[in-house]
């Protein structure tokens, strides 16, 4: 078991995007709130998209997002990298370019050494540097549990926004990172994950979706989102429900981290996966023969997961080839948009 101090994951109850408040419960808090109306608000709360978008001029809009969570890895520097990559991802998923950021920090300064916080911030800063983002400030509160993340602002052209909507029949769906970060994190907590698997997952979570977004920018993308706390099927459901189309997923084509199916079979599944399943399981039909371990994995909450991109069938293979050539090596076509059953996901 790799247990090098300071064991960040032992200091918190739930780490990463698995710590999100379940969607069904969040809806109850948001439902009926009197939201301000503004013609320049192009993407707001009611659309439940990855980030909000506000038009400044016909040429320029602001993309804004915020994301923070407790640690899901033990190393502070890696945690900082992952939290920053995860927060920046929402801007990339909208097709925007992140420009500025503010740190959001909760830290138990009375019980943990302040050098831990410094390492977390260094990890975050390195990712911001890689993304070409300027850190403008931040806010830190005393808290029994560590939490870190960013508020990010980016630029986008108002005509080139990539939302979760607008799936078209016969589109292909491309996923750019492996699934299973929640299950691997559980296996790490259980002391079962081999160091090389833990390192591979940590690297994947710390990888910016910048390159994937940049490659996708040259294509006619109909819809895009990033896969985080609600799991692959949870985020896909947000694309499908209300789209007037259906989606067929080929589970055998889904890129997975090493050993995750075995761990899922052993019951090393984060509670968030069951929450996601009970919230969105109703819109998913599993064809006979899709094993339960795969079903669980498709609902596994992801931290800093990949982009899920819908493009016309004619260019899908070319886009995957270009993504792989650009270093997005896990990219794969995982499904297609169908005319029926409307608003449902079929997994085969």
């Amino acid at each position, binding site marked *: *078991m790799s247990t090098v101090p300071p064991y960040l994951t032992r200091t918190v*109850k*739930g780490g990463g995007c698995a710590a999100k408040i379940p969607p069904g419960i969040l809806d109850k808090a948001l439902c009926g709130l009197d939201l301000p109306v503004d013609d320049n608000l192009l993407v707001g709360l009611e659309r439940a998209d990855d980030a909000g978008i506000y038009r400044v001029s016909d040429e320029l809009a602001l993309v804004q997002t915020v994301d923070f969570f407790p640690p899901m890895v033990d190393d502070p520097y890696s945690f900082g990298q992952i939290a920053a990559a995860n927060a920046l991802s929402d801007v990339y998923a909208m097709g925007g370019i992140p420009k500025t950021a503010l740190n959001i920090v909760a830290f138990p300064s009375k019980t943990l050494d302040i050098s831990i916080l410094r390492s977390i911030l260094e990890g975050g800063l390195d990712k911001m540097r890689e993304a070409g983002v300027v850190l403008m400030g931040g806010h830190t509160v005393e808290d029994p549990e560590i939490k870190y993340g960013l508020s990010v602002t980016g630029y986008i052209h108002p005509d080139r926004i990539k939302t979760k909507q607008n799936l078209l029949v016969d589109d292909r769906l491309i996923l750019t990172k492996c699934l299973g970060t929640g299950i691997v994190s*559980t*296996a790490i*907590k*259980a*002391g079962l994950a081999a160091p090389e698997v833990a390192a591979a997952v940590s690297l994947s979570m710390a990888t910016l979706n910048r390159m994937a977004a940049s490659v996708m920018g040259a294509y006619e993308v109909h819809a895009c989102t990033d896969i985080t706390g609600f799991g692959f099927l949870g985020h896909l459901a947000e694309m499908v429900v209300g789209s007037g189309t259906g989606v067929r997923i080929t589970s055998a084509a889904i890129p997975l981290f090493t050993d995750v199916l075995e761990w*899922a*079979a*052993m*019951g*090393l*599944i*984060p*509670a968030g*996966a*069951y929450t996601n399943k009970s919230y969105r399981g109703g819109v998913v039909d599993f064809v006979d023969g899709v094993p*339960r371990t795969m079903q669980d994995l498709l609902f596994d909450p992801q931290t800093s997961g990949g982009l899920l991109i819908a493009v016309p069938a004619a260019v899908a293979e070319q886009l995957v080839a270009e993504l792989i050539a650009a270093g997005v090596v896990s990219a794969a076509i995982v499904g297609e948009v169908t005319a029926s059953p409307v608003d449902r996901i079929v997994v085969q």
Partner: protein
Amino acid sequence: MNDVLDCCGLECPAPVLRVRDALTGTALSQIVVTVDNEAARQNVSRFLEHQNYQVHTAVQDGLFLITGSRDGVVTTESVCVADPVGVYPEYSGRKIMVLVTSAHMGRGDDDLGDMLMFNFIKTLQEMGPELWRVAFVNSGVSFVAGDSEAVPLLQELVASGVQIRACGACLAYFHLLETLQVGEITNMLEIVTGMKLADTVVTV
């Protein structure tokens, strides 16, 4: 007889690990696990099925009683025990953990040491409700297995809510796994985290 493993209050993946440790090195035909949340119920069920147990779940007083059975026969009585062994109201006061590291107490004469350690175990109950857990390691595991005279004393402690733990690696080393009489098998991780949870750790 059923082994009942209380995993209430534990979050994933702790319940699965507790069940795995309980089954390590033993071939229980039936195990009953209590958990208090849906994710733990699903995960423990998956783990038991993965270990080729047939799983049956009953709900009782808001808790899930998960029965894993290898002989395929799940008796109703075993599932619906009114006061399952091992499920106790959590004692919230000071916690004392006793770590027994040897079959003998102190250095000098081992025969005298045997007698002293037996007497120590016999007298442990005088610690009262603050005695939370007794963990046996190295040759100390001889007290929880075979025909040790300490077994009935330790069973009395279990009946009063004390947790008895025996190091699985140590039991295996002394070939005592098969004859474990009282308590649950543990590992170094649980021993170390137990030390952190306890207010006082007494090592003998």
